């Protein structure tokens, strides 16, 4: 499971949190954790929405 996180400064979603270990995953397509997240989404899954700051 994943949860979207908003940037503290610009209020934009730029981090995906892996809820199993709290890992903060940047939206960089070269990041293998982000690649795994995109694959998870492509399989029909939806992340938890970001909290409002």
């Amino acid at each position, binding site marked *: 499971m994943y949860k979207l996180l908003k940037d503290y400064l610009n209020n934009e979603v730029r981090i995906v949190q892996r809820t199993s270990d709290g*890992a*903060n995953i940047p939206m960089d397509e070269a990041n293998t954790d982000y690649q795994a997240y995109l694959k998870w989404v492509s399989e029909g899954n939806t992340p938890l929405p970001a909290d409002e700051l």
Partner: protein
Amino acid sequence: MAYTKYSLTPANNNAAPPDGAPEGMLPSGVNDTMRDMMAQIRDVGDGIRDGTYTMTAPKITGGTITGVALTGNTFTSPVISGGSINNTPIGATTASTGAFSTLSVTGATTFSGATVANTFSSSGATITGGSVSGITDLAIADGGTGASTAANARVNLGVDNYGMLKNRIINGAMVIDQRNAGASVTLTSGGVFPVDRWLGFEDTDGVMTAQQDSSAPAGFVNSIKFTTTTVDSSLSASQFSCFRQGIEGFNIADLNWGTANAKTITISFWVRSSLTGTFAGSLRNDGGARSYVFTYTISAANTWEQKTVTIAGDTSGTWLTNNGAGIYLTFDLGTGSSFQTTAGSWTAGNFWSTSGAVPVIGTLNATLFITGVQLEVGTQATSFEYRQYQQELALCQRYCYMISLTASGDFGVGACTAGGVQAYVPFPVTMRAAPTVTFSTAGNFSIADGTAGYTVTSTGTSNITTNQTTVNMGASGTTGGRAGLLRYLTGTAFILSSAEL
């Protein structure tokens, strides 16, 4: 008659004239005998001059023989001791047809301008001056380069990339372990790093642990040790256990893989196992569309052995040359048939084992140690490339940067808000990609603003790049507008930034 009718004993030359001079011979016979002696002297002289006489045991001691041609003769057991043979074909009238099948000499002997064909066997031979040409490429094992050109010689000797890092493997000596500091980890299906850059997987019904170990062959101080703590002796087709290193595409771009100019590489490593037999590993591309499974044999249990594998580069497939995974080097620890293929050739698909490979996961308490892993261009395994510790650490930090404190210290500095601190944490080297950032328990950290300390209650990040991350630490009681240090409070506090492959 020939001169041999005369006796070497003067008194015996008493035959009747003209063959002899008997006692009391008539005066009329004296001239006959003298005339016959003159004829014999002429005959002997002509025989020496014209070669009509055979010398059965000639002996020449000292002096010099010049301008002599030996034609059609065979010396079955000649003894040539000292002296010189100068510009004289030996064994035939011309050098092109004459040959020694075996020429053995000892001591100081000089050959100048002579031709020696087939085998030349000598101890203490000296070749001074002149030139040697037309020699078949001398193998490295015989002291040569195995090549006929300088370029190929450099490749064969592993020095064609001299001046850059020849070993494309990082942390091949297993000395860097930022995450665990030598502690044991249990492998998982998603992968765990027992040491930096080496990712271990276990997706079977068994259990396997791994850790940095001090057992190592001479010249090394560390290895990775894999231990089977729960056995799976009947792997299903899709089950697997293995470990691998992903080599960044930038670092293998010169191999030209996927083209007709693909370069040959050689893998070398030291391995030790409680098991013996045939083990497997592979090279794969990103996505696992191309694989080359190789095997190696461990001959003796619990004994360090060095293995080398030379593989011609793949002329097909897509091999990344950017910051993605260029090559995955994988070692099998026990894998089902879905990931097995015939060893020894490039094939389409994702494989790292072969039928019959020894499964370490299949034997309780079985161990496998490995270190000194090197992947280099060329057909020869050259000596392991030792790097200074800081160099190796910096190479690892492109993929993993871990700040870990078990005592007082600071992680970064930032600005406080009413709810905590936003701190800047730079990376020591530019990372391969913007990394995934993980924290230890929030309570391991505190915030100091110069007036008081505040226990962190939540962790988070924003603005992660390849050069830094900004961490957001929540705490009660902080005052906005003040500077704040993010520092160690208790336990083992860490910030792990990972951009691994």
